Every structure is written in C-alpha cells, then in structure tokens.
C-alpha cells in the first residue's frame, strides 16, 4: 500500500504530467502522418528522454506510442492510408464506413476501443507481471540464456515472410552487438583499431538509423506530391459510438486479452496483434460476410488489440528484461543507460517505480479519449502538414538526436550506415524486428552463456539440469523446429502476404 502511495506521489508531479501530455501530442502527430510510425516516434524521443529521470522518460515513450497507434487510425479512415502499420488491417473497413457517412462512428470506435483495450492490457500487466517476477527471482544465468534465446527465436517465427531472411536479419543484429569490449572477458572485438568502437555501437544511432532514416529514405521521394488532399471530416457527431462499443463488448474484451498476450510474445507487437484479432473476430462473428464492407465489429476487436499489445509487450520487458517488441527494446535500452536493469529484482527493489509505471500506463490510456477526439476534429489540419517541410526537419532531428547520445559525430556515421542497410533490407523483405531485438538480446545471451559455462567449468549439460531451464530449452528447440519446418515447407500462405502488406503500409 505504501508503495502505491509512493507511486501516486511520483506520477502526480507537474513535471511528469506535462511530459505525458506533451509526449501524447507528439505521438498523435507522428501517428497521424502516414509514413511516420510509432517506433520512429520512440526513436526520435529517446535523445530527449536521455536528459530525464527514469519515470518521465518511460512516461514519455508510453504515452507517445499509445497515442501514435490511435492516431494512425485517422488517415486510414480519411484517406485509406494507415498512419502506422498497426492500423493497416482495418483501414479499408474504416474508410468504407466513412464513405457511408459514418466517419465519426468509425473513428469514435477506434479511439474508445483503443482506450478500453489499453486499460485491459494495463490490468493484465499490473496483475501478472509481479507474480511472474516472483517466480523469475529464482532464475539463474542458465534460465536467462534460454529465455533470451527463446525470445530471439520467437521474433523470427512471428516476423512472417521467409524465416531464412528473418534468421539472417537476426544474425546481422548479433554481429553488430559483438563489436566492442566483451562484457565477460573484457577482450576487444572487431573494432578495427577505431577507438570510437571500444565501448561498442550505441543503441540510439542504431535505432534512429534503422527506424527513422530507413523510413525517411522510403517516404521522402514522394514528399510534397499527392497525399495533400485536404478532406476535412464533415461536421459529424460521434453518435452511436457508445452503443456500438457496448454491442460488441465481447469483441473488446477478446481483442484486449488477445492483444495483451500477443504483445507479450517477443517480437510480435501491435501490428501483428491487430491482424490476428481482426481475423479471429471475423471467424467468430455471426455475420462474417459483412466484414470488408464497412462493418464496425472487426474495428472494435482490432482497435482494442493493438493498444493492448503495447502494454502486453512490457510484461517480458519488465520481468525478464527481454523486449516484447521494438518499442520495449528501446525502453530497455533507455532504462539500462539510467542504471536500472529490467528484471525481477526491479519489482522487489523498485516496487514504487514499477507501480508508477503502471499508473502512467493508465493515465496515458485515459488521455487517449480527450486527445483522440480532439485529433479527429482537427484531422484535416493535421493531415495537410506539408511533408516537404516535415521530412527534412525530421532528418535534421535524426542527425542532432544521434549526435546527442555521446556527443560524437561517429554516431552520426553509424546512423547513416544503418539507415542505408535498413533500406536495403526492407526492400528485400528482410524484417528489421529480429535485427534490433538481436542487437539488444545478443549481449544478454552471450554473457549468460559465459557465466553459466564458468560456473559449470565448461560442462554444457549444466544448461539443462534444472527443470525450468530444461522446459525453456525444450521450447527453444520447438520454436526452431517450427522455423525450420516453416522454411522447408513454406507455401506462399496468407500469413506472409499479411505481413507484407503490413510492412508496406
């Protein structure tokens, strides 16, 4: 109880509240503009969060991403162009509803169900994360090795498309992570005599390069052309939003729970959650023939799922230090630079902080409602922001942001290099998710492996002589069997095409 009071005191400071509101507005803007994703919003926020305390830093990222995912629905309904990949699955549906004069209803449902889904996700997070953490306290380096390996393997499996390409993407991430001083032996690797690389390649320029520069290079060529249709939503009320949401309350609950679970899987984030939730809702619906013609039912589940997934991703991130998606990968990086190593110990040693994070989640999700409706009203103005000005501005932000982490021009080169690598990989259908997860998990896997091997004096069987470790090892082997099976008997199925559309969006 005292921890909860402490947490409340931590959150309700004008500084934290201000950060939440400002970050929400920033996320709203980034999400609403097609081509700018929630991950990109996070990557651009990180340089600013470096100068904050841990709680406001997390609050900024949490509120910006939650708002960005909701705002991504707006251009989907107005222009049939999803603002972020997480809205891609129902952009058509919402657009068709808008054509029938139900724009207010479609977007109102998006905002309301996103908020509800987000709150369900937080409830699950707050309820289960501490229990799992208690259990995880007994984990040793053996279990962490398998857990991190399992997370990495899942990332390849859920990335969709060709598993071979996912695996190569992961290996590239591992290779980048190995540069610099090895954490166990202290030996220096692959620095080619460059002293800038001694401490390794830092997270921030990698993130900005992969997620901001890559997107910029893909969107900038078309800047200033097309897309500037200023279709302001007609003065439409939000009548029927509450009624429709109540009518499909089962869909909201299912979307929220499913989204949280998918979000908790390493590598699967909001976009995959909304795809799966939409598909399941269609399968269970009493009127599946209406899907794709402007029917609100799928909208309800998928909107709830993508915001719930954001919270779900924090379960493995906070409990094990293993990111559930690209955004939590960034969060782990941010926390580590602030001297907090996410893991079960955080729950016992920094209980107030953990509770404060949960509170921030609730606040950010509740804030979706007023800000979301405000954004819908101002959508016309939001979407007519000239991209020809915006993208160059983002480029300058990227450069200054990459520089600011270590005040080093070398990081600006790293950012540019990874941006170019990222574009090449994206154009060739290599998923970027496994790369960034591997970059973060690589050192965790290696250091835990070395620690275990030192303890057991070089005996590899020690990795499976504890029951939990054995189960985790079994799971990891199972996932790899699935990956290999998937690669050998790969048919051009629906899953692959779904993730391709998601990547294009």
């Amino acid at each position, binding site marked *: 109880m005292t921890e909860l009071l402490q947490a409340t005191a931590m959150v309700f400071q004008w500084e934290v509240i201000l950060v939440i509101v400002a970050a929400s507005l920033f996320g709203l803007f980034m999400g609403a503009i097609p081509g700018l994703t929630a991950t990109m919003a996070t990557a651009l926020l990180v340089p600013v969060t470096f100068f904050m305390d841990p709680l406001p830093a997390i609050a900024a990222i949490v509120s910006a991403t939650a708002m960005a995912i909701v705002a991504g629905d707006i251009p989907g309904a107005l222009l049939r162009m999803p603002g972020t990949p997480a809205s891609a699955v129902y952009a058509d549906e919402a657009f068709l509803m808008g054509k029938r004069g139900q724009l207010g209803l479609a977007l109102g449902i998006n905002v309301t169900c996103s908020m509800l889904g987000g709150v369900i996700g937080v409830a699950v997070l707050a309820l289960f994360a501490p229990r799992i953490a208690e259990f995880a306290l007994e984990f040793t380096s053996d279990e962490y090795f398998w857990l991190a390996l399992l997370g990495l393997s899942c990332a390849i499996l859920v990335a969709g498309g060709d598993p071979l390409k996912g695996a190569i993407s992961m290996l590239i991430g591992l*290779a980048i992570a*190995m540069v610099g001083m090895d954490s166990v032996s202290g030996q220096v690797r692959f620095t080619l005599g460059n002293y800038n690389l001694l401490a390794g390649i830092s997270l921030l320029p990698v993130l900005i390069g992969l997620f901001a520069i890559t997107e910029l290079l893909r969107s*900038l060529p078309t800047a200033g052309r097309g897309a500037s249709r200023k279709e302001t939503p007609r003065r439409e009320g939000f009548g029927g939003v509450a009624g429709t949401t109540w009518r499909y309350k089962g869909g909201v609950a299912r979307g929220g729970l499913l989204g949280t679970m998918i979000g908790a899987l390493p590598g699967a984030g909001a976009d995959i959650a909304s795809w799966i939730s939409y598909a399941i809702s269609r399968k269970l619906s009493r009127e599946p023939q209406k899907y794709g013609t402007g029917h609100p039912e799928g909208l309800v589940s998928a909107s709830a799922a993508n915001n719930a997934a954001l919270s779900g991703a924090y379960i493995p991130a906070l409990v094990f230090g293993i990111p559930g998606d690209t955004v939590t990968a960034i969060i782990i990086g941010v926390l580590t630079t602030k001297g907090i190593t996410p893991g079960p110990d955080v729950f016992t040693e920094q209980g107030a902080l953990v509770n404060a994070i949960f509170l921030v989640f609730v606040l950010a999700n509740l804030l979706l409602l007023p800000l979301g409706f405000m954004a819908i009203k101002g959508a016309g103005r939001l979407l007519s922001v000239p991209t020809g000005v915006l993208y160059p501005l983002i480029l300058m932000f990227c450069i200054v942001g990459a520089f600011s982490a270590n005040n080093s021009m070398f990081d600006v080169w790293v950012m540019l290099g990874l941006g170019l690598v990222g574009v090449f990989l994206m154009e060739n259908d290599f998923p970027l998710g496994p790369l960034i997860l591997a970059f973060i998990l690589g050192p965790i896997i290696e250091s835990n492996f070395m620690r275990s091997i030192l303890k057991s004096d070089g005996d590899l069987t020690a990795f499976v002589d504890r029951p939990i470790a054995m189960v985790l090892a079994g799971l990891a082997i199972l996932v790899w069997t699935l990956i290999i099976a998937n690669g050998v008997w790969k048919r051009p199925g629906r899953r692959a095409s779904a993730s391709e559309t998601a990547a294009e969006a």
Partner: protein
Amino acid sequence: MRTSDAVSGAMAAALGAALGAALIVASADLSPLPRQVYGAGTFPKVVGGLLLLMGGLMVIKGLRQRQPWCRWTSKVAARPFLLTLAAVVASVVAYVWLTPVLGFPIVAFVLLSLLFRAYHRRGWARAMLTAVLATAVIWLLFAQLLHVPLEPGLLEQVLYP
C-alpha cells in the same frame, strides 16, 4: 531495389566470411577464458558460421528460382529514390564535415533551406524563412534546453556574447 536471393544471400555469407576472417586475424587476442574452451571468440564463431550457412542456403534458393539479379520493385520510381538517397547522404556528410568549422546554426540553416526548396517547392524566400525558424527551434531545444554541445562555430560571438 530488390536483388535476387542469390545476391543478398551471397552478401550475408560474405559478412559471415568477413567475421571468420576477422576472427582468424584477431585469434591471438580472442583467446578462450582460462581453463576453458569457450571465450570471447565463441559467439563470433557461431554467428559467423550461421551467417555462412544461411547465406549459402539463400544463394541456392535464389539460383534455383532463377530470380533476376536485380530489379526495381519499389512503389517509388528509381530516379526520385536515388536523388533522395544522394540528398540524404550528402546532407549527413556535409553536416559531419562542415559543422566543426562553420557551426551548427549556419550548416543547419543552409541544409534545411536547400531541402525545403527541393521538396516543398514554394520558392527560396519561404524555404529560407522556414529554415531560420526550424534552426532556431532545434537550437533552443537541444542546445539550450537539453544542453547538447552543438557547435556555435562562426556565430559564437553572436550566440554567446
């Protein structure tokens, strides 16, 4: 630009080979831990080996499916994409090389003016005006508020009188 799986696979394999080569060169430095067969060289070996293997598999796949070596599949035409690529690379290179000499305000203003003019197409006057404002905002945010040591350069006397 989409390349054949054979080409991208070969690149992955080449990266694996490069890791292997770097390991052989650095093998003296990356000795195993005392009384162990494992050490700082273990993971690079595994990752390099797997890259060679997976890259090799992709080469085989690409050759079997007889994909074209290289074709343009982006939604964006090749010319605007390559122009943008050149513009972004040139901007970053110019920033890194010129900022230590001229300072952030001048370099950012010039780069932004050029980019706004090229992509927003509303004439020089408006491009330069927007660039002045944008440079000022970034300077205030990063240099004043977040204390990032951006180089004042030639304008040092003006900014910090």
